[in-house]
């Protein structure tokens, strides 16, 4: 039975519990449920917000392509990805991945894979807004993120 990933790109916050329930409630074949929530940090008090710019249309399409890869690669019973855009203050949610499977390794690896690929391939860009009023610089991509993503192609 083919699993269709749920992918959403939105400005409003998401509800981790609601998204988890959607993958597990009323089912008896889910043995493992992993959630990853990425949140905005204040960088030791210097950051007032992150501004998330995205490429509408391609963001959804690329997240769907990554999610479909995960569904092909691991025996999942469900997979959900939600990514926010717009201005996000410290302490608030940015991104959510929920993966469900009969077995824990599949659920862990699929969520981990999804985050690594999302970081390097989904068309989102972060700009820092600083507490001192500056709209700071664009966050630079980390070479470590490329290395993380490369782990999955060996």
């Amino acid at each position: 039975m083919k699993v269709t990933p749920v992918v959403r790109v939105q400005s409003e916050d998401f509800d981790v519990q609601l998204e988890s329930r959607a993958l597990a409630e009323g089912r008896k074949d889910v043995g493992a449920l992993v959630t990853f929530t990425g949140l905005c940090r204040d960088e030791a008090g210097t950051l007032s917000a992150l501004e998330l710019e995205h490429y509408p249309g391609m963001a959804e399409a690329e997240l769907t392509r990554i999610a479909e890869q995960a569904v092909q690669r691991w025996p999942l019973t469900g997979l959900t990805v939600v990514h926010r855009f717009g201005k996000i203050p410290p302490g608030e949610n940015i991104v959510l991945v929920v993966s469900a499977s009969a077995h824990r390794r599949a659920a862990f690896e699929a969520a981990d894979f999804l985050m690594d690929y999302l970081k390097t391939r989904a068309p989102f860009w972060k700009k820092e807004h600083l507490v001192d009023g500056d709209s700071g610089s664009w966050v630079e991509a980390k070479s470590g993120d490329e290395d993380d993503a490369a782990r999955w192609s060996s």
Partner: protein
Amino acid sequence: MNIRYFAWVRERVGLEEETIEVPASVKTVADLIGHLKSLDENHAAAFEEEDAIRVALDQLHVEVDAELGNAREAAFFPPMTGG
């Protein structure tokens, strides 16, 4: 052809989006970048660090040697930093 810019590429070009006539000599993404750089100083500045720029054709990631083919939209942006 519809051209879109994101993040600091957008800020340097000074445009989110523009529609341009693509000369017949422009076959690949690299050719297109060369053509865009010739338009004005802002475009030239945006594409100065060519290695730092990523490209999508019709919302699919491609390399700079990709043929434009029948693509209707090209997008230029820095390496992604979502998640």
